């Protein structure tokens, strides 16, 4: 079975995001970018499935700016076999919307014919949590979101999902779209020898036009604001004072 793993290049999770002075979005100029952490987990899962003999080829795909090839190289160094880069914009502040991404992915699935799409449940930059679901609808495939355990047997996949207050286990029919959650696994390091070898792995460069998809944004960003700063705390000398202050603040 072939597995397709879409990965997104996002602002690194260590970076404190800063809104651009004009409020049009988050400032990404010269900011450290990395693979979306949830996607890293999906790459790792694909590699584990391959190591377990259930998958024979891992194709990673990224849609966005040309620099996303670094993200793909990381996935190749971790153990993916081949990459497809869809250069959809040259403006690093232009976030391609989930529907456009899902349409391109559908076209790639039609071409590549994987038996499984494994991807992060959401990207940490815009937290849309939509691409996997949209792709499943466009393909007419089953979907299993927020996976924290995945077991594939024949034409069925058993997936444990993290839901409010507990776990839910569902069984879906393959082919399927699985979106992964944080606790599914811990991704491996891309080792230096593997990074060197990854330079030689195949990476095809495409554009949305190759798949007949219009990536024009449909949503308009009206305003982006940073959360209000936390007010400074104070030190109290006694429990009585604490209670008095809490009453004053209307907290008790």
């Amino acid at each position, binding site marked *: 079975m072939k597995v397709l793993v879409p990965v997104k290049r996002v602002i690194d999770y260590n970076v404190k995001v800063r809104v651009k002075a004009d409020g049009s979005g988050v400032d990404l100029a010269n900011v*450290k970018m990395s693979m979306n952490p949830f996607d890293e987990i999906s790459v790792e899962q694909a590699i584990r499935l391959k190591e377990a003999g259930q998958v024979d080829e891992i194709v990673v795909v990224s849609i966005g700016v040309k620099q996303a090839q670094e993200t793909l190289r990381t996935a190749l160094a971790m153990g993916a076999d081949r990459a497809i880069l869809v250069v959809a914009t040259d403006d690093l502040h232009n976030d391609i919307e989930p529907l456009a991404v899902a349409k391109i992915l559908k076209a790639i699935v039609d071409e590549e014919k994987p038996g499984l799409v494994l991807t992060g449940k959401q990207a940490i930059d815009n937290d849309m949590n939509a691409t996997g679901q949209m792709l499943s609808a466009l393909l007419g495939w089953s979907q299993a979101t927020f996976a924290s355990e995945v077991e594939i047997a024949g034409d069925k996949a058993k997936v444990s999902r993290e839901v409010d207050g507990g776990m839910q286990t569902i069984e879906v029919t393959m082919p399927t779209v699985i979106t992964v959650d944080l606790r599914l696994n811990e991704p491996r390091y891309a080792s230096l020898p593997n990074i060197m070898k990854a330079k030689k792995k195949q990476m095809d460069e495409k554009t949305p036009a190759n798949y007949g998809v219009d990536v024009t944004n449909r949503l308009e960003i009206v305003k982006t604001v940073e959360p209000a700063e936390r007010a400074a705390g104070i030190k109290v000398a006694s429990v009585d004072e604490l209670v008095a202050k809490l009453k004053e603040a209307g907290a008790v």
Partner: protein
Amino acid sequence: MKQVSRETMEYDVVIVGAGPAGLAAAIRLKQLDADCQVVVLEKGSEVGAHILSGAVLDPCGLDTLIPDWKDKGAPVTVAVKEDNFYMLGEAGQVRIPNFPMPPLMSNHGNYIVSMGNVCRWMAEQAEGLGVDIFPGMSVSELVYAEDGSVKGVVAGEFGKNPDGSQSEAYEPGMELHGKYVFLGEGVRGSLAQQVISKFDLSKGHEPQKYGLGMKEIWEIDPAKHVEGRVTHTMGWPLGKNAGGGSFIYHLENNQVYVGFVVHLNYKNPHLFPYMEFQRFKHHPMVADLLEGGKRVAYGARAISEGGYQSMPKMVAPGVALLGCSVGMVNVPRIKGNHNAILSGKAAAEAAFAAIQAGRSGDELSEYEAEVRNGAIGKDLKTVRNVKPLWSKYGLVASLVVGGLDMWTNTFGVSLMGTLKHGKTDAAATEIADRHKVIEYPKPDGKLSFDRLTNVAFSFTNHEENQPAHLTLKDVSEPVKINLPKFGGPAARYCPAGVYEFVEEEGKAPRFIINFQNCVHCKTCDIKDPGQNIVWTTPQGGDGPNYPNM
């Protein structure tokens, strides 16, 4: 422990550190010989992530390395238009006119840059020429040949447990061998320290001297922003407690670099460099500029200040030290990047000629001669007495005498020969009881910030499950000696809040190392009174993630 076996890769030249020196060397090697196999290893998560510099760049280095840097889109665009120098008092300032300044301190023809971005651009140029650059790869060890020469490095070891054992995710990294290894780790490089000690390279040279530079990027009110303005100050708040001063550079996009340097030869262990910086921003002249603005990034890095007489021997069999691993900052000009680039270029030229002649693994003495007698040596020799005068007679006298010496030196005459630095910065620290405790005002959260809040703006991260990369030679020394005798200075000299002394009633004091906060500035390795702290590399990719520092 499991036996570690590593893959090996052969290169012509292995370069540690993707800073201006290392990248210049890589570029020059490829310019001279397109077939030369060159690899650059960088511990930062990407090129530029660990670069912190003022910076006003003298383009003389770039001019010789990449003469058409302008056409190639170098991020060197904000020319210095206005150059101010102030002596600060607590509430006011006196502007020192430019005319008595020695000509070499003029910033005419220089540029305000982010060296992080310059390095990102240099890395693109290098990759375009076919250099292999691997960021996120720490070099943890040097590899020696049987004859004792350096033949390579170990890079990219990941996944050690805190006790040093191998976790399930352990990756042994690989050995990269070269005919020559260049160490361009910047100030107080951890491998350079090993090489200097192993080959006794400091012998016959003055000890290296250092400063601690701290820097914030601010976005300010456009009405107050003057692109191309450079301001330097001295005096308040450090006064007689320590040498140092500030810089304020207006770059593009209404951003301003605000930085503060404290010379690390201060005697009073109660001094808190970070808080001096925070206090400085409340000076009316600075507060007025920053009011209503926003601090967008913070970082810190040690600076080499020993100059000409402190440069150790910079070559040993198979290895050469570049840039500030040697210490090439011109202190009165507050610039070193041009020399870093020139040193990388010189080392590359020496290695190229040596490899052409069939040599390898020996001393590139031609490189050392070029540094000492060429442009770098000339630049540093003229100003060699400023720092020792400053240390000895204080600021005002050093400005007058040192200024005069610099004037005469520009005509090729020196009044006083070469002065010595004497003690190391660690040895300069005096006993706490002999000095007054300094009270610092509490940060207001608008202009000044507490240390941990600011560290969050260096975007620093370290994998927690690994051995602390800040190691103690003697684990008892901090509590047994440094706390009673020096008042526990580690808690203050660290600009990232790595070190804490925890004193609880009824319990013995404890020394805590929060290595996750470390911004890789190396101050602890320099200033710890007993030289008991050894800075080593953590896992690759860890540390700060500076944007355009």
